């Protein structure tokens, strides 16, 4: 600590007395101070990262091979993995999670792009449109889930069924039937998330060099051709990245199925994260939960690496 406080007094004096020596001293003095002080400034946040980010990641690798009851901990080799892989529900949960990710992709992926392209064309109404598109993003998922649960009322007087009846469809069972439950979950999740990606696309669209549009217009390209040949290609890298982020995110879905259906009906909406939650917090089997977490994280990391490698290769 004393080295931190003493040097500052020296440089000003030295700078005045020995002009030749000054630049060198001045350089060294503050640099060293910056080192020690910098460490002090960074220390609290680094400690936070160490305890709550880096250590849990490392510990995740360790406890996947352990058994713990929160008092004693033993090494059990690969027993947690064989336990998880032998769970008859694992295949179902994996299929459900893949179905969720697939449906979320088909329904949720094009919508933000469409809205972003439309909002980018707006003039006076752009402010209100971006307000509206982002509004669902600030709503807590728990509120939208509880709200949509009312909309999904399977009776003929349910809100969605009333709308469908007006066009001669339904009533649909929504969350009550294994065949439509997952779709209903995807709709809620998409409502809560489409605005955040739309805003990211919009930011990309707003940064497109306007000269591209001017040149295309002078060349006589129609509006549709401009969208096809300028707007969409300029969005390419953002699309590729958000596609990856969405897949990684949807494979870790939890809150929506947990609160809307609890995994039912007939386990048709149990996801991998719900299985992890059950292992850890219902059965108290933290080792199995950590093992499944590790397998999912590894699979997603490998997928992301291959995806990024391929998309970079194709971009060349």
């Amino acid at each position, binding site marked *: 600590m004393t080295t931190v406080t003493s040097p500052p007094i020296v440089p000003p004096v030295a700078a005045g007395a020995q002009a030749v020596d000054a630049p060198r001293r001045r350089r060294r003095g503050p640099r060293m101070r910056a080192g020690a002080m910098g460490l002090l400034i960074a220390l609290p946040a680094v400690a*936070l*990262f160490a305890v*709550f980010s880096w250590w849990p990641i490392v510990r995740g690798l360790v406890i996947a091979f352990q058994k713990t009851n929160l008092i004693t901990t033993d090494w059990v080799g690969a027993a947690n993995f064989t336990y998880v892989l032998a769970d008859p529900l694992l295949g179902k949960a994996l299929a459900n999670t893949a179905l969720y990710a697939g449906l979320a992709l088909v329904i949720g992926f094009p919508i933000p792009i469409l809205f972003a392209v439309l909002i980018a064309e707006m003039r006076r109404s752009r402010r209100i449109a971006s307000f509206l598109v982002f509004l669902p*993003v600030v709503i807590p998922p728990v509120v939208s889930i*509880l709200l949509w649960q009312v909309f999904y009322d399977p009776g003929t007087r349910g809100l969605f069924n009333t709308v469908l009846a007006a066009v001669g469809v339904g009533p649909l069972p929504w969350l009550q039937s294994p065949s439509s439950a997952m779709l209903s979950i995807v709709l809620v999740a998409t409502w809560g998330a489409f605005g955040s990606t739309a805003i990211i696309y919009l930011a990309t669209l707003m940064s497109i060099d306007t000269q591209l549009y001017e040149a295309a217009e002078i060349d006589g390209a129609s509006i549709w051709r401009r969208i096809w040949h300028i707007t969409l290609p300029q969005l390419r890298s953002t699309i590729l990245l958000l596609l990856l982020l969405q897949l990684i995110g949807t494979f*870790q879905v939890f809150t929506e199925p947990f609160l809307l259906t609890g995994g039912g009906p007939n386990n048709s909406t149990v996801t991998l994260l719900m299985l992890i939650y059950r292992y850890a917090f219902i059965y108290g089997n933290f080792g199995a939960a950590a093992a499944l*977490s590790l397998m999912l994280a590894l699979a997603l990391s490998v997928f992301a690496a291959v995806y990024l490698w391929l998309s970079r290769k194709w971009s060349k």
Partner: protein
Amino acid sequence: MSLTGSTRTLTTVGGEQSPRRGRGIRSLERSNVSDADLSKRSVRWGYRAIMGAAIALLLLISAGPLLWLAKAAVSTTQDILREPFAFWPSGIQWENIPDAWNQIQIGRFTLNSVILTSGEVLVAVFAAVTLGYVLAVLRPVYGPVLNGAIMATLFIPGVISLIPLYLTVIDLGLLDSYWAVWLPNGVSAFNVLIMKQYFQTIPRELFEAARVDGAGPVRILWSIVLPMARPIIGVVALLAFVASWKDFLWPLLALPTPGKQPLSVGLSTVAPQAELAVLMAGMFIAVLIPIAVFTVFQKQFITGAGSAGAVKG
């Protein structure tokens, strides 16, 4: 990942005035559909029809469910279930709001949400400012290693640390205390990243000049960097606020005592027993604060959320 696109987006966060007036206005006025296109009658009408339909659709999709929630918050349970599209056939039930506040503890949960969110925002801003400053301005020898270790967490799927983080919080004796939510949720590599990139756009001559004048690292942070960083601090604070207000799984695990839980967790636990109309009133209260904050700081939200893509790209 190339991060080149980000500086442009982030400079507009800070230098709001100048870039907006220069390059910005032109890009606001010009996209696919030009003024020349709009001078044609057929294009103008098609444009107006499509844009009008888009706004109407957005109103229906985004605002519709929330307006319905506002209506349901002061309806009777019977009306909510039997007449979802009617406007208060049994009259307006103002008493739902105080009932929700007291009977199903929405007041307590709201207070907890405010406490949790404030702490998380403080921790998030503190961590992002200090680390961003050290990495972007002080640039110590260990900087690249620290930077790599922080950024690596951006690419590791979050699921891996859920169980170990829970066990760590238990080990530290923090379970069921607000610290169990404040500290882990303040740790965000993304916040450090956008803060760092913002600091990198501040001309280094400013720091050199301050150093020559004898200012130490703390003084430079306090008197030069912080005043200039106000816009980006606002963005980080707002992103942390929304993330915290929406968070469900972690506070559910970290705060088992109902009296300490935030709105998101509290609503889900009272939902099965509560009277539907009172629950709707509670949910309405739960969305008021985030909607109000978003309405006031819309520009900062949109820039912050938009820069997310530019930074990650």
